[in-house]
């Protein structure tokens, strides 16, 4: 019973249940064979590498980005407040400030800016508290107390009972 004569076939060796008994060298050999088969099967074009040629000139069919044209919906003097909001949102910013100043004076608004500011003034603190951690919150409350001492009439806030 010489080792040479009883060689197991490659296909048999590759089977899962045979893997356990194999020694390292045989395993490596098998893997290499397999790799070669795979690389042989893969075909490739015998051409120079087609590099993704970076095109330095780009075509642009539309005029809108060239001239920074506005979005096509316009409304003047507060005729359509929704559109005016869109105009502020979508149009390039550089002219925005002038626009805003003009629009504010013309707009037929229900709530004036002052009212809105007053309303949000109180909200700022509330929201800040919401996102603060517990310890910070405590510190903030103290601050509030201090503030309230100064301007007691304007702000109604929860006063932390002192113990």
């Amino acid at each position: 019973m010489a080792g040479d004569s009883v060689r197991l076939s490659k296909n048999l060796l590759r089977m899962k249940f045979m893997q356990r008994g194999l020694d390292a060298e045989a395993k490596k050999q098998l893997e290499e064979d397999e790799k070669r088969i795979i690389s042989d099967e893969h075909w490739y074009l015998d051409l120079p590498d087609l590099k993704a040629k970076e095109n330095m000139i780009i075509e642009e069919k539309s005029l809108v980005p060239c001239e920074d044209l506005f979005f096509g919906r316009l409304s003047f003097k507060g005729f359509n407040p929704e559109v005016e909001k869109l105009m502020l949102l979508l149009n390039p910013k550089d002219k925005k400030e002038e626009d805003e100043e003009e629009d504010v004076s013309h707009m037929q608004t229900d709530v004036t800016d002052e009212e809105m500011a007053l309303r949000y003034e109180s909200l700022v603190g509330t929201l800040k508290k919401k996102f603060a951690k517990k310890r910070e919150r405590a510190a903030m409350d103290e601050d509030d107390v201090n503030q309230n001492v100064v301007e007691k009439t304007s702000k109604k806030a929860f006063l932390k009972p002192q113990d």
Partner: protein
Amino acid sequence: MKQKKKKILQGGRGRCGCVSSCRETRCSVRMFSVLKERVGQILLPGDEFCCGPQDTLPLTDSGKPERLVAGPGLRLSGDRLLVSRSGVLRHKEPNKFWIESQQRRYVPAKGETVIGVVTAKAGDVFKVDFGGSEPASLSYLAFDGATKRNRPNVQVGDLVFAQFIVANKDMEPELVCIDGSGRANGMGVFGAGGLLIKVSLGLVRRLLVPNSELRADLQQLFPCELVVGMNGRVWVRAGTVQQTLILANLLQSCDTMTAPQRQQLFRNVWTRLHGAGLTEDPKDQLVLCGGPEPMDFLVFV
């Protein structure tokens, strides 16, 4: 070495003489300076820009690879840049070039917003006429909040403000009424109580350009609303029918006016409206709307 030199000599006007290795960057740098020289000049279809021989390349600015944007009117063909429209060459920093021309024919371009008229319902798409060579298709799913179950309420004859998502010379153009995030953002069906007019593409541009004088003039008139399609259609609406008509007439006559003429006209209209001019008297209203009294305020002043 000899061959290289020969190649360069051959490549005169019309052929790129650059050596292939770093051709693209050099070409674009060279092209950039050639284009920049001609900004503001009138160009005709068939004019072409090319890189020219390499030896004239200035060494100083060859380092920065510049990406060049060829806008409408310029076409890329191999290494050359061809002019495909007659007009004035314009340039915007840092690297945009385009041809500004006056025309009425609209060619769709991807991303542009237009006003279209729904002409037919065909299964799951609407056919929309936008004044181009071919009607565009508009899917019923391409509206804000539309699902398979919940179809948008679009009738034949409705006006839509929509954006091109496919605009290709070989394919049917396709419109959508939503932006990238699926919101309407001002697009969709509109058009109750207004008037649709057709103006030149140049006027549309003048209306929408930043710091537009025309827009500033309109702003001072009266509360009104405009929807401006890049295809030369403008939809106007104001407080009353009469004001809407005034606006439409104004815009249409602005097309062929110089700035001083236009300002004079706007002043006249303004005084008519706000000053002694306008009453509820039907005769006055007819004048303003261009009735039997010829549109005297619209005639050049």
